[in-house]
């Protein structure tokens, strides 16, 4: 009789035993996600510039995981457990701690400016290089002086610097400087 009870008990436990690795895996995934989200948040301990996933109080008396960072990770865990996606969990944390908690600027509002700036630099710079290259391609070779004399409208210095003067200046520089 007792043997039968034990068997029933084991059978009842079986789904739980089978579930355990799955649950463990889910928990680990959840933990990984919390770390991933934590990597985008600044630890609010005030003693570092590290992320919530990596604050170890470098240089302190105990450089183990920071308590603030650990509690932030727990909070993220809770948000993830509520079924929020990464972005929602991140936003929930930002709502709680303010924009200072961003480790990288948000891609909305004024934070978007930070992301757009490098793209604008690259586009603007590429445009500039293309314009320069076009101008250089159009320019006849070895005519610097003549070009200057022709384009004399650009200020007084342009009027004064003739090809002869430029050649004289170059000659003078050559004589006056030695390697």
């Amino acid at each position: 009789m007792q043997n039968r009870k034990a068997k029933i008990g084991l059978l009842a436990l079986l789904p739980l035993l089978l579930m355990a690795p799955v649950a463990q895996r889910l928990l680990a995934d959840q933990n990984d996600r919390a770390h991933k989200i934590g990597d985008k948040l600044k630890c609010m301990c005030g003693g570092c510039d590290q992320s919530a996933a990596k604050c170890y109080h470098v240089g302190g008396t105990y450089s183990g995981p920071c308590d603030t960072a650990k509690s932030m990770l727990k909070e993220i865990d809770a948000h993830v457990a509520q079924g929020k996606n990464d972005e929602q969990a991140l936003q929930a944390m930002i709502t709680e701690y303010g924009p200072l908690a961003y480790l990288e600027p948000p891609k909305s509002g004024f934070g978007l400016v930070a992301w757009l700036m490098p793209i604008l630099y690259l586009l603007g710079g590429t445009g500039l290089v293309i314009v320069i290259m076009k101008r250089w391609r159009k320019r006849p070779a070895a005519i610097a002086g003549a070009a200057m004399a022709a384009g004399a409208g650009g200020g007084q210095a342009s009027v004064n610097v003739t090809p002869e003067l430029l050649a004289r200046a170059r000659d003078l520089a050559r004589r006056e400087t030695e390697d």
Partner: protein
Amino acid sequence: MDVFGSFALILAFVCALYAFGGGIAAIVTRHPLLIKSARQSGMATCALIFVSTLSLVYLFFSDNYSVAYVVSHSNRDLSTFFKVAALWSGQEGSLLFWSFLLAIYVFSVLFTYRSKNGELMPYVGVILAGVQLFFLTISNFVASPFKALGVANASGAFDLVARADGNGLNPVLQYPEMVIHPPNLYSGYTGFTIPFAFALAALLARYPGEKWIHLTRKWTMIAWCFQSMGILLGAHWAYAVLGWGGYWGWDPVENASLLPWLTGTAFLHSVMMQEKRGMMKVWNVWLVFVTFMLCILGTLLTRSGVVSSVHAFAQSSIGSWFVGFLCVVAGVCLAAYFKNKDYLKSENQLDSLVSRESSFLFNNLVLLVACVAVLSGTLFPVFSEWFTGSRISVGAPFFNKVNIPLGLLLLFLTGVGPLLAWRKTSTESLLRNFKWPSILGLLAGVTAFMFGVREMFALICFVLCVFVGSTIVQEFFRGAKVVRIRSGASWLASCVDLTLRNTRRYGGYIVHLGMVMIFIGLAGQAFNKEVEKELPIGSTVKIGNYDLLLQSMDQKQEKNYVADRMIVEVLRNDKPVMMLYPERRNFPTNQESGTMVAIYSTLREDLYVVYAGMNPQTNLPTVHAFINPLVKWVWWGGMVVVMGTIVALLPSRAAVVVLAKAASTAGAPELGGMRPAQVALREGHD
């Protein structure tokens, strides 16, 4: 000795004032005696700065605790080695040290060119004296390192006092790298003053633009080399000491050191355009101006507290002085440029889009975009506070996302640029130069993919590293082959001969090879692993292929600190590999502690073990271990970069001699279709 040092410093200020004012008068009057006296005054300024700096060092060595700066940054138990480092560990001392390094450069320039470049040197002298004057003003009147220690008495006046011992040096600075990293970095910062002074002087003197480039090329390379070494040593210090597992955190102060390096690198490339083709003269002048201004901006960021940084010196009002100086420098540069810009017109046209010229343009574009992106990212928290009232942080993930693609683009250009010919590159030449490197690069990519590399940027980086590395090896191979056929020497001897014949070109290739190695190391970061665990004695923690067994703990008493050590046995696949001793050092003088990381480093990966301390809640030792693949490549790459720069600084052996020797070699084998004319052409290739 403090009075002596202080007096030398004020005398240095007076001499710099004369070198500046007298120099301007000399330029106006062209009186030979004035010119000479201004130059000699400039040299005297330098000598007095040396005396003043040595006085401060002496105060540290003699444990003179009546000087506030010595009290704040030293103590009796501090080793002699670190007493030298204490000189630049605080605001006042580091500013004097800055003047000291600048004085070495200024003295070298004034002495080397004392009887040369007669018309240009007074301008150079005035500009250098102007820069020195600024730093001496700060050191004398704003942040003096010789200030006596005093306490306020009942009547409000200060009584001079002397302490029995000092507060000690910040523990994180008590590492060998800290003795060499700041001097290197500061030598880079200050070194860029020389090309700046020559560029501005040449513009003011209305020189058409070539000569200052020839005169300052070596100075620029020296400054660039120091800056590179400084940055890498700083990264190594952060890696080996701070214990967070990385070496570059995009901290504002790290960024500040990178900015002039980026523009300096752009300048070293674009300068060739001016030398070879008479192009980009305006660009080069402004690159040098901007590089110098970025050095000053870097100092401003470090010392003003504008941006928060783990490196920053104490917040002070000193920042406004630097802002003022920066404005003056920018004003002078703009005025000089607009007055004399017509002397900087380009002389040649661009013949083809596929040419060395266009590759240099794009190289400069990428470097400058990276520089501006890093700068605006660093200052973005300040901007956001101005515009929105709240600070938005810009951390490492932002900088990585922005700079990794730019870095890869730059790496690609590193491979392509040097193999494109000046003016125009033919399709045959493109095929000949890039066929094998492209095939090898793609093969490397496929192999890495097959071995499980799935990180896109890391994969692209490996492909490009093999591509660029192959182009460089191919260049050495082709050149050495010609030399070998002519001389019959071994491959190695032929490579050495080839390099010595054109040190600039082949030194440049070596620098590029070093950069490739650094990129390989950077790509390794994509595969970092870490584990953190409380570890009772006798237990193990696994990371990668390694098991770390905590055998025991002990304590080591040193003169200035007490170290708590973990004794960790490293096992790989259950076989003992080595012992590691990560430690925490507790400094009783200033009640601070620091880590000493234990690293088992191979070319494949670093096993990086940190003793994080005893967890106060569980009273168990906590270990924090990392596997950081390929990190060693960064340090070795840095050494190769320095080696390449030194080679590029050596004078080239005249190619003509070699060709003449080759022509006289009777019975030399056939050249395999390579005619001497072609050999000569390729030697003039860079």
